[in-house]
């Protein structure tokens, strides 16, 4: 017997796999596309995630977070895929120690961003992040997961979540702070260098 799982908890209504998993479909696909940076690969990744989750649904532990469980399956599937292995091998492992937190300067990347109101710029900057920064940033900001949920999804301690998240934000700010070429040209260059299937 399984139960409906809320965003961050569990209630007591029995539920089928479909009832639990389908509401996560859009966000899982979005996350998969961010990781793979390719529509076909994202679809393959989501399909494999659902197949694995359905097969292993009987092993899903009552009282644990179903959403974190699904994201964990997706992420582990990605990491063992050819694209995932390539992404993790080409990106140097980031030390998890906290670096000094810099004060936000007067003209910050955030203010520049808002002045330009440039969503494409931000998306490109996120695309360029190493996959372990990209995923934690998306889980926190887009999926609005708590540190605990991120910890369960990534299978790392909460302290690591905090430090990795901090470094991901710092890296993103640094990249946004760099002088930007014309937005259209920058986007075209990034698109050419990656495998976006927008």
């Amino acid at each position, binding site marked *: 017997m399984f139960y409906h799982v809320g965003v961050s908890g569990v209630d007591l209504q029995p539920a089928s796999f*479909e009832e639990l998993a389908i509401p996560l479909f859009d966000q899982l696909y979005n996350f998969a596309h961010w990781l793979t940076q390719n529509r076909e690969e994202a679809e393959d990744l989501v399909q494999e995630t659902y197949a694995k989750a359905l097969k292993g649904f009987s092993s899903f532990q009552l009282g644990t977070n179903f959403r974190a469980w699904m994201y964990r399956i997706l992420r582990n599937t990605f990491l063992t895929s050819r694209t995932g292995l390539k992404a993790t091998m080409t990106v140097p492992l980031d030390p998890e120690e906290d670096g000094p937190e810099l004060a*936000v300067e007067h003209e910050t990347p955030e203010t520049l961003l808002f002045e330009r109101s440039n969503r494409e710029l931000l*998306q490109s900057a996120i695309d360029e992040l190493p996959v372990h920064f990209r995923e934690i940033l998306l889980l926190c900001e887009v999926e609005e997961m708590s540190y605990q949920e991120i910890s369960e999804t990534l299978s790392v301690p909460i302290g690591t979540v905090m430090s990795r998240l901090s470094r991901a934000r710092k890296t993103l700010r640094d990249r946004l702070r760099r002088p930007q070429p014309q937005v259209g040209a920058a986007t075209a260059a990034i698109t050419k260098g990656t495998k976006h299937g927008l």
Partner: protein
Amino acid sequence: MVCESWKAKLDTYVDGELPEQEMRAFDAHVRSCPACSADALARVQMKRTIQVAGKRFTPSAEFRNRIQKSIASKPQRRFRLGWMLAALAAVILVVGTLTSAYLGSRSGRDQVFSEIADLHVAALASPSPVDVISTDRHTVKPWFQGKIPFAFNLPELQNSDFSLVGGRMVYLEQAPGAHLIYDVRKHHISVLVFQERSLPASLDRSPKKLPFNMETWSQGGLRYFVISDASAADIDRLAKLFKAAS
């Protein structure tokens, strides 16, 4: 420099992940510190922008259908299982209802037979077992007029071993009836007559565990009980006499 310790936790603060007490202290500091306030605001704005920009990719309708079909077999099984469980529940309910009705019916029947036995024993234990003492059926029968709401016939006992002792009025299931006592070779036999409609249904089968021999039947809207420690043959013969007289 004073704010460095605060800034180290600024991300955790805007994520709402600080402990409650620390959160309140941070709130107070941010309200009094323009630099930290501006920094916190900028980070919140960044969070919101990433949130909007991060919702970037939408799956195609065709892919959505494919995924839904691939996992649709699970709820169907659940659906069938649901129906099976519902059917099982219905069967249990029906069986339970029938069993309850049967037990209720049997319980009502046993209760009647038990009361009949009690009436028989109580009459024999009484120093005056009958209210009308007569061996003459033409004396006993009229005695019940105006006392019970029905009439019945008493058999002719000539050339038989039975003798009429008398009769009295009794109640069963809060309904009045006639209690006649006969003797046969020093055995006392009670014949009780009630209106059928005042008694529970399903009284045709005699109980197996009654400490007396008993025969019961329905005739002309009346229910007859013949009970005694006499032999079943004697009871049966007296019953036949009553059946013939009615």
